[in-house]
């Protein structure tokens, strides 16, 4: 099977990112496009991306940037699961006692405040039972979500690889940087 350019990009990044991770061997073997290391340095970008010109998805059209305990908060465009914001954590913060997965799956969401696309690292918080927040905190975004055979873009997988326990507690969405 010939690898796609996308896969090659992922591998290159994986190698770079593995340098930040204490689980280098694991991540290298995983061979996915991913965002590693639970503690990210502030990531500068070379130049600001232009506002999005392409048609927006319905999620993007109705997204808001005020309340991160609602499914339509802009960073959750491809979030699947219970929002950690409802469970004692925040949009990029695990609730006390949970462990952010060292790797994550990836989405691209439009920020309604500046109309730009951002890369979002969806990190599950792991090692505790399913958070029992109310139904309005159970989200199932599907923008650009792909099947399991594209794992880095799938949000049904329990993204708890590399954490002490792979038991799913809740989901976060950390802004990584501008897309494109």
């Amino acid at each position, binding site marked *: *099977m*010939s*690898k*796609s350019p*996308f*896969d090659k990009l992922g591998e290159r990044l994986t190698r770079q990112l593995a340098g930040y991770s204490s689980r280098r061997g*694991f991540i290298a*073997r*995983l*061979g996915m496009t991913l965002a590693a290391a639970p503690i990210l340095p502030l990531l500068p970008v070379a130049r600001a991306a232009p506002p999005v010109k*392409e*048609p*927006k*998805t*319905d*999620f993007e059209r109705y997204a808001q940037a005020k309340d991160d305990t609602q499914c339509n908060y802009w960073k959750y465009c491809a979030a699947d699961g219970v929002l950690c914001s409802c469970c004692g954590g925040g949009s990029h913060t695990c609730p006390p006692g949970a462990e952010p997965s060292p790797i994550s799956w990836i989405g691209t969401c439009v920020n309604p405040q500046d109309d730009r696309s951002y890369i979002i690292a969806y990190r599950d918080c792991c*090692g*505790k*039972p*399913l958070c029992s927040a109310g139904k309005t905190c159970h989200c*199932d975004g*599907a*923008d*650009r*979500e*792909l*099947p*399991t*055979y*594209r*794992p880095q873009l*799938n949000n*049904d*997988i*329990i993204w*708890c*690889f*590399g954490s*002490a*326990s*792979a*038991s*799913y*507690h809740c989901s976060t969405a950390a802004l990584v940087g501008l897309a494109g």
Partner: protein
Amino acid sequence: MKDVHVTNAIRKYGLGIVVMGLTCGAALGGPVQAPAEAEVSDVASLAPDRPHRFFAGGWGSSGFVIFDADTGRMEGSVPAGYEANLSIAPDESRFYVSETYWTHGSRGKREDLVSIYDARTLNLVKEIDLPGRALVGKVQNFDLSASGSRGYVYVLHPASSVVWVDLKKQVVAGTVEIPGCALVFPWGEEGFSSLCGDGSLATVSISDSGSAKVTHTKPFFDANRDPIFENSFVDRDTGRAIFLSYSGLVYEAKLGLDTTVQKPWSIEQAAGYAAAGTGVQELAWRPGGVQLAAYHKASGRLFVLMHVGNYWTHKQGGTEIWVLDTKTHALLRRIPLQPVPTSGAADEKLPLYSSIGVSQDDKPLLYLLNPDGNDVVMDAATGEILRKIEFAAGHVVRVPGY
């Protein structure tokens, strides 16, 4: 005398509660005059041959509940751990559960298993320890070979691979890596196919000695633009497979050592519409849900949960069922679905049916699950709702013969 003693005890404590010893008088030879007979505490077993039996469970449930769709009654349940899946032996003598436990609930030692249950007693026969398994609730993450002699468990822990289990010897027999691919679609006794991120199918053949060979078809679909749903189908006996894409294209294939894939056809075109596009503001009838489609092997009929939406609404449940003949590529029927309000609140988001199954007999029934646990049994030929079943949770529906 004992009776008197007992009666006094009852009177004194005002409770009238004593135990079987009350009946000690029987030892004195008194005749049986009780109008209701003492009951034996026993254990039920599962009836064989119930073509209208279905299993519902998966994420958020503690097992697979077995329903008799002809009566709507629960027949029993098969316990299940985290992100579990269930497969039914082709001869219906065993139920197999692929599951994951941590020894202390959500912490402690992780143990991945295939657990084997007797299909009459529901007693645990054996737990087979796995080297790992994928924690993702997809119906095709676990399946059996045509005869049921092998089980295939999809693993993503950390690399993509498949563990195959010898179900006669009840041991793990081997692991085969399938980089870039996922899930298992078994054919015959020789192997299985997997869907791959480059738009191909992986063909995995495993010899009796356990050596595995992996080849690939040419890419035939675009995994980024219009991927194939994981909830696709193979007839294990014949290798005939039906792959459905996000936009509603049906790829028919013959899986095996020499896999062939036909040109796709559009279920929207079968309904007289234009083929659905992939634009994020292109409204069309689209397939969507969790276990969003079901396939009746004998007739070749495909049942798909459909809704009107833009692209990337592939997880939304159905407002109609489309019944399609995969042999003639014709739409046979559209069955409207009425979501049932559960809270009575005016602002309630109505739960749509997100999972569908079909029995494999010649008078097939449809089983519809929604996230709030109001399941429906429907006549597959007429669309008539035969009964409703209150059930706690679950997105996965399994039927005998598949």
